[in-house]
């Protein structure tokens, strides 16, 4: 327990100090915000219609891009060795690190995105459903990212592989996340349920999968 808390605290501290995760992600978000209207033209109507989809995609991408950082550094500098020699099972190590990733990257973005969406003049009505669905979805995003990260932790071509591995798992989140973001309650309701179900499932499965992968690399 103390170990888990310590690990979480340390990862949060690291993120705050070197601001890798959320910083890059935020910069990425900004870039998209600025480039998108230029890319699709300043036409307000189109922009408004596309806003939710674009925000979701940007969220997915920025989580995807920050994924490889979850374990790599600790693997390379030997911290993961030390962790594997502690009494704390690797499953919990994964859990702690995925949670740290969620708190420092996915969640902030999920919370920021809908409001940044105002700049893509997102309909104010859709802000709240979007916020809700994104927060729910972001849980799964981080956990799934941790699977991909563990599978590619010291692979040369990790970059390409990680996207290919994670993508199929992200698609459903995008699909249901989008339909959950529509104001319409009859559609949103079920989708939100599915999103939560996916979050829970990944909460259980991701640590198992990721820990197994890490063990394989550490042995």
């Amino acid at each position, binding site marked *: 327990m*103390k*170990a888990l*808390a*310590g*690990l979480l*605290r*340390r990862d949060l*501290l*690291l993120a705050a*100090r*070197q601001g890798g995760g959320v910083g890059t992600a935020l910069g990425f978000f900004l870039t998209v915000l600025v480039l998108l209207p230029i890319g699709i033209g300043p036409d307000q109507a189109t922009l408004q219609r596309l806003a939710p989809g674009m925000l979701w995609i940007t969220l997915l991408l920025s989580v995807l891009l920050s994924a490889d950082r979850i374990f790599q550094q600790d693997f390379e*500098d*030997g*911290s993961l*060795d*030390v*962790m*594997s*020699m*502690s*009494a*704390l099972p690797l499953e919990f190590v994964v859990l702690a690190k995925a949670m740290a990733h969620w708190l420092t990257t996915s969640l902030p973005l999920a919370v920021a995105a809908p409001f940044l969406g105002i700049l893509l003049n997102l309909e104010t009505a859709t802000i709240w459903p979007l916020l809700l669905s994104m927060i729910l979805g972001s849980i799964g995003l981080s956990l799934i990212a941790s699977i991909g990260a563990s599978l590619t932790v010291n692979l040369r071509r990790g970059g390409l592989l990680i996207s290919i591995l994670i993508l199929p798992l992200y698609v459903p989140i995008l699909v249901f996340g989008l339909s959950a973001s529509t104001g319409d309650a009859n559609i949103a309701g079920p989708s939100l349920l599915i999103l939560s179900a996916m979050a829970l499932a990944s909460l259980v499965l991701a640590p198992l999968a990721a820990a197994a992968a890490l063990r394989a690399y*550490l*042995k």
Partner: protein
Amino acid sequence: MLVRGENLSCERGGRLVFADLNFALGDGGFLQLTGRNGAGKSSLLRLIAGLGEPAQGRLLLEGAAPDVPLCQYCHYVAHGDAAKTVLTVRENLLFWRDLLGDGSLDAGLASMNLTALADYPAALLSAGQKRRLALARLALVQRRIWLLDEPSVGLDDASQLLLVALMQNHLATNGLIIAATHVALGIKPHQVLHLGGTQ
């Protein structure tokens, strides 16, 4: 407590590093590993630390709780110092303490004379200071078996004496030490295991 390796052989990157290695080390014993570069000293230490599996043979731990794996009795100080450069010395030690068990932070800091550096980010430490930070883990949390990979590297004379004191104290309290080194560590080893591997 007795650590025994029975005709261990180790393979890395598809090549045989060493084969049919046997050793047994009991309470208060100090085993020194020597051998050419690439002989397999670090590899052996990693095996014992549970970071790798012997291609053949087995590692036994006698006189210990059966459900606790060998690696959880071990401290492993590798070539690299698993320190986070953006964290201060204290923060690094705190993390290890929380992770590995209980222990006194001040004792850890004092053991390697890091007290004055406690609040420096590890990024600002010199090579030897980083090394001392890694070694401080030994005094920070009590573990029975120490696996040291060239521990004295980069240490100034004063720090080497501190290390010697630390090791002697550990042996005196029935600790076990397995250390790989190319230079004399300042303590007479009870056993020397020479790995005559490929270069």
